[in-house]
């Protein structure tokens, strides 16, 4: 199975976030900083990432925080292994990845994270939703919630920017119940793809 990152590679150049300095809907809220602040406030100090353009800002924010050890992984199941080890070593982990990764990680979610009862917040860019310009992304988007439901993974969908207000509570919930928990963040949440 190819890594989920493949889906991100062939995007048109207009998706490049670096060209959009004003990426947030609200002039008062920096969403990347808000997410990172919530991670730190919940004592999450070990974060692995597999990139998606939609997540570029939050990954950059995490990378510069001294409170967080940022360890990029080459594939999302590898990242979940790193998180499992970090948690057993006494650190609270999180993984940041694209929804195509659900296709990559089902075995790891079932036989490692769930079987050994480990907490794992998964901040997921939900590609293939409204405003998506790349048709192939829709092919995994239509399976994403069904697969998460099949795995009995608590799933939250951030569509409006204000939905981020619930992140802190979701993180507390994750470490209360020792389960993987999915937070799907779609293009509308991130403020679209720049020209739409």
């Amino acid at each position, binding site marked *: 199975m190819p890594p989920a990152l493949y889906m991100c590679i062939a995007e048109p150049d207009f998706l490049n976030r670096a060209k959009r300095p004003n990426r947030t809907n609200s002039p008062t809220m920096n969403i990347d900083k808000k997410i990172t602040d919530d991670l730190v406030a919940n004592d999450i100090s070990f974060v692995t990432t597999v990139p998606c353009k939609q997540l570029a800002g939050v990954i950059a924010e995490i990378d510069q925080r001294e409170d967080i050890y940022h*360890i990029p992984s*080459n594939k999302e199941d*590898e990242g979940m292994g*790193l998180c*499992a080890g*970090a948690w*057993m070593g006494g*650190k609270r982990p999180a993984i940041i990845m694209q929804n195509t990764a659900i296709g990559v990680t089902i075995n790891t979610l079932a036989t490692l994270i769930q079987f*050994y009862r480990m907490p794992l917040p998964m901040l997921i860019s939900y590609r293939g939703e409204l405003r998506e310009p790349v048709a192939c992304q829709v092919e995994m988007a239509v399976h994403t919630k069904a697969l998460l439901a099949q795995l009995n993974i608590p799933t939250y969908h951030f569509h409006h920017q204000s939905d981020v207000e619930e992140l802190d509570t979701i993180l507390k919930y994750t470490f209360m119940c020792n389960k993987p928990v999915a937070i799907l963040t779609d293009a509308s949440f991130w403020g679209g793809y720049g020209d739409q």
Partner: protein
Amino acid sequence: MIRSEILKEIAPILRDQLVVCNIGIPSQELHAIDDQPTNFYMLGTMGLASSIGLGLALSQPKPVIVIDGDGSVLTNLGTLPTIANNVADNYILLIVDNGSYGSTGDQPTYAGQKTSLAKMAEAAGCERVIECQAEDTGRVLQEALDSKQMTIIVAKCESGNAKMPVITMDPVVIRDRFMKAVQA
């Protein structure tokens, strides 16, 4: 020498250390030879022992020894660059390289043919990589512990498995007693 003979020989070295052990027969053999609360047995998820061990080593100061196999490392080859670029000097990856998928009927792996895992680890950027013969594994492992440097060991051995019972311990029990041993 086959894998179980290596494990018997290095069991006294492993006993006092945190050990993450690969899925299948390797975990069954280690469990039968010398079960310890400091052993984390993988009951599933082929390929991730090295990743779990790295996350563990980066998160606490005690030495971590990962017992992996050539087939499992080939399954998760992306682990080698991640290990190389996130140096944890309390991390030892011991790849028991018998050139076969032992748990599934000893089908040959590419590591037993043209592919060198030691060279791949070096190419990935790992700085202390040692390939040894099975008989030297104990000495090389002890030297790695003494060196206090991140070390990748590729121990070349013969293909074959000892007949050991399946681990029936509950995974949450394995994980819980392991976490208590980490904190002890």
